[in-house]
């Protein structure tokens, strides 16, 4: 085990610099969000965030020095413990904004779902590494998905749709990097896309487009949807047996496409049964925020106005007009990016972008350099998680992604998410210093 001094000397200073910059910017703008337009400070959130940041840096250091390999034998146990914690949270957790996602005493509380993401990454990396040669391709892929879907389901029933969604990119990126058959990955990604399209289609036609898109109703209106599914099944069975007998490639292609249709059709039916209309509505309102001006559309419109009015240089720190809780309710958590973009303009937002890109780029470099597969898979998972949070949150503030309420790592106010990403960065740093070990 390398000494602390060795760890420090071989640390990836790019990641450290980017992380620290983002955390500091985060505290600055959480402060800004708590100041009224008269310049009066009304929120102590920035102080709490600063305390979490300091403890978070300690966590990062601990995970950087601690040898990630030593945890490896216990990943299953940790995973199992966290599943139990998630079940406990669902049953006895604190109800915040309609979801049971918090546990804790009094003022102190944590969101276990934030840490579960890391636990899943560790356990999945372990499984993918140890199953690399022994288990068959499809079985490995499905088992890996099973590992992800148990905690994902438990987070989904809290219900915390946004956080549950993060497990999907973690799974996809890790499975892809771990060398599972790219056909499976492609199938999975495509079926996810088609499922979500089919799920929002009826509401999209009714509320946003306000007309029916020709022929598409066959996918969601009974009995046509059953006929489509039946046909897809028949085609699938035929193509599969065709492939069995003739081994022709295009039979495999047809089977692939029809299975895609079949699975997405069923999954979207299930989604319609589980999701309420207002939930789906929240997902598509960004396509035309004006349909729900007072509800979630309001946040989007205000956020876009804030970002756009920032211009190149911004209105200056603490001088935003749209933000400061005047128009945006979740300024310090979900919409932290819009206040940065408003007050620091394009220059400031580009700096935030650059820091994220820098971290992701270093992750690629480390994955390339590292000799240990387990370590590479961990980095892949963290990368997928970080990139997805960035895309969804920043996309939401710019009005090009649905509202799911997941935080922007490093910047958003919140102890659980800050601690979990700092721990993750610590792991990446630790992996980087030990990259030559095989």
């Amino acid at each position, binding site marked *: 085990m390398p000494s602390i001094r060795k760890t420090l000397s071989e640390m990836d200073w790019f990641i450290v610099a980017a992380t620290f910059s983002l955390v500091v910017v985060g505290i600055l703008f959480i402060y800004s969000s708590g100041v009224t337009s008269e310049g009066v400070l009304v929120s102590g959130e920035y102080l709490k965030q600063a305390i979490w940041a300091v403890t978070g840096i300690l966590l990062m250091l601990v995970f950087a020095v601690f040898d990630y390999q030593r945890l490896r034998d216990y990943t299953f146990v940790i995973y199992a413990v966290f599943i139990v914690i998630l079940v406990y949270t669902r049953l006895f957790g604190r109800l915040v904004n309609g979801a049971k996602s918090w546990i804790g005493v009094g003022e102190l509380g944590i969101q276990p779902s934030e840490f579960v993401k890391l636990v899943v990454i560790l356990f999945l990396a372990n499984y993918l590494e140890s199953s690399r040669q022994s288990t068959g391709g499809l079985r490995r892929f499905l088992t890996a998905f099973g590992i992800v879907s148990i905690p994902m389901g438990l987070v989904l029933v809290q219900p915390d749709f946004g956080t549950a969604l993060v497990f999907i990119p973690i799974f996809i990126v890790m499975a892809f990097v771990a060398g599972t058959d790219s056909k499976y990955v492609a199938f999975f990604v495509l079926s996810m896309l088609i499922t979500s399209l089919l799920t929002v289609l009826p509401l999209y036609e009714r509320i946003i487009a306000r007309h029916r898109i020709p022929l598409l109703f066959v996918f969601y209106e009974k009995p046509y949807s059953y006929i489509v599914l039946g046909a897809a099944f028949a085609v699938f069975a035929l193509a599969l047996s065709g492939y069995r007998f003739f081994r022709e490639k295009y039979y495999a292609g047809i089977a692939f496409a029809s299975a895609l249709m079949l699975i997405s059709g069923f999954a979207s039916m299930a989604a319609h049964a589980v999701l309420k209309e207002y939930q789906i509505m929240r997902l598509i309102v960004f396509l035309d925020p004006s349909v729900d001006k007072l509800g979630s559309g309001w946040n989007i419109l205000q956020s*876009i106005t804030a970002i756009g009015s920032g211009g190149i240089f911004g209105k200056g720190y603490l001088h935003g007009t749209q933000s400061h*809780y005047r128009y945006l309710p979740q300024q310090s958590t979900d919409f932290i990016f819009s206040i940065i973009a408003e007050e620091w303009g394009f220059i400031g937002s580009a700096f935030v972008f650059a820091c994220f890109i820098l971290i992701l780029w270093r992750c690629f470099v480390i994955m390339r350099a590292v*000799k240990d597969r387990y370590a590479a898979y961990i980095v892949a998972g963290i990368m997928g998680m970080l990139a997805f949070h960035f895309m969804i949150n920043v996309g939401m503030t710019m009005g090009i992604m649905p509202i799911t309420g997941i935080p922007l790592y490093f910047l958003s106010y919140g102890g659980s998410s800050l601690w979990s990403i700092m721990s993750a960065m610590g792991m990446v740093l630790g992996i980087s210093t030990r990259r030559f070990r095989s």
Partner: protein
Amino acid sequence: MSDLNRSGEPVDPRRLVVLSAVFSLLFLWYSGYLLYLQLVKGVEFKAKAAGISRQTTVIPAQRGEIYDRTMSIPLVLNNESFAVDLIPAELPAALRDTFFSKLALILDRQQDDLRKRISPSEYHLYQAIEIAESVPYDKVASIAERIDEFPGVAWHVKPKRNYLETGSIAHVIGYVGNITREEYKVLYNKGYGTGDVIGKSGIEKQYDSILRGKDGREYRTVDVKGRKILQSDRMIDPPIPGQNIVLTIDRKIQLVAEKALGPRMGSVVVLKPATGEVLAMVSYPWYNPNLFGDVNASKEYLQILNDPNTPLLNRTIQSSYPPASTFKAVMATGILGEGKFPAEKKVLCPGEISYGDRIFRCWIKRPGHGYLDLRGAIAQSCDVYFWTVMRDYVGIERMVSYARDFGLGQISGIDLPGELSGFVPTPKWKENKFHERWLGGDTMNMSIGQGYMLVTPLQLANVYALIVNGGVVYKPHVLKEVRDAANGALVKRVVPEALFTAPFDKEDIRLVRSYLREVVTTGTARYSAPAKAVQVAGKTGTAEVGLADRWHSWFVGFGPYDAKDPEDVIVVVVMTEASNPWEWWTPFASAIIFQSVFADQTFEEAVDALGISNAAIERRNKVE
């Protein structure tokens, strides 16, 4: 791309290339869009942020009205009224004192009542906060004339719930109030807002989603100070009014039941066994629901909350009591069903028997009832008969099973919030709770509905509904129909739904019915319960609660006994608590209700027709 990694490196570099390409494309897209928003459209957004903006006002939906089953006049209406809001951040700190004193003067309210609606930490908020409700139109108009003196003040229409009928119906209908922080947290996902009015109890709570409708919105273009600048640029999303509700309650029967119970702590249920419709539901004391919406009535509200007689409690479903002798009908069904002790066989009642180290006294003193068969034991409500037969021939396990088959110990699922399930004790429960064995004495106590056993008045009504229906119980309900607010068209009609069917022999049940008739013709209730207009059957009950000279008193009856059409039958439960000075009133109250319903008479006419004199009403002796 192959799934084998030939290069020997831990991660296939080609896959990393693909992945980094995907990431790069995404970041390119995002950076490009950011550039577009801030550079290309920046000027436009700047103008928007600085200049005009859209203002949205909520147009509240009319809450549905509530009718009784005759649909003649509404029980609950909405009155037009306004609420005054303040956007705290727009009120300069220096002006606060004069502002509130002037506003209080106009609104005719206490200055403190207005001030305390905004906590000091909220003075920076740009969200409108409601500071006064139930403001009439003329006062809003006088604020509007002097709006320059009231920076940050706005108002909106907020209909006030007006409960026209303020009697015992209050427990059925319930009341509304502003949503609390806790309720909002729970209902966050269901489209509720922070300033919403929400049903707090009764029908108002149970069917809040039907009654509330959906608020509309009005969009206007305003300048930064919130002044309208373009009258033409107005868009309206019309509100969808809530739907009207028709109750199964019959206001005439409700009124008679209310008067028949009188000022006695207790309750009345009138149930239609053929459908499960509740025709009347009275719980005394009740409260005036209008007090909850009245700003000047906070003292009265506190009084209601702290009243030791708990007027907010709906005693028909939220209180449970020992059923006492009314439970003997359940036990009689058990004796017949088990068949181990013939109904004709007689038992000697010497007035008291000893068991263990205790003496059990029948309600009549020595020499007791003499020899009685089952029919006589029910008619005379003889305890000794049930003690002996239940203990020696049926046993506790079977007794528990019969009680459960009658639906006791389980909620009925009536469409009102807060129903209790009552309680059926078991030997195992007693062992766990008191670490004592279940004794023969416990079995004896339970056989006459005493001891640990608890039922709600509604559950008891269901027990007798089962006897009337010959085994089926319909789910009790108070919602009859949902109707469109605009044109009164029927939206939904509640269809009777069988709650459960008990596995009893029809002939046994018929026998029990005939025994219950005898209670009224020759038995314990022969002087008190008969109504003239209809043949009634039923059972008395007097429960000991450990107080000297105080008892819970029950009468449960059904009629017409000889009904041709099961639709005609009603079950009446009257219950008075031991907290009242003792009087044997429940059978009289029930007789008045039966008389009034079947002779179509008012309370006073029914009392006259039955010849119930003041002397009878005043009778204070214990008879059972």
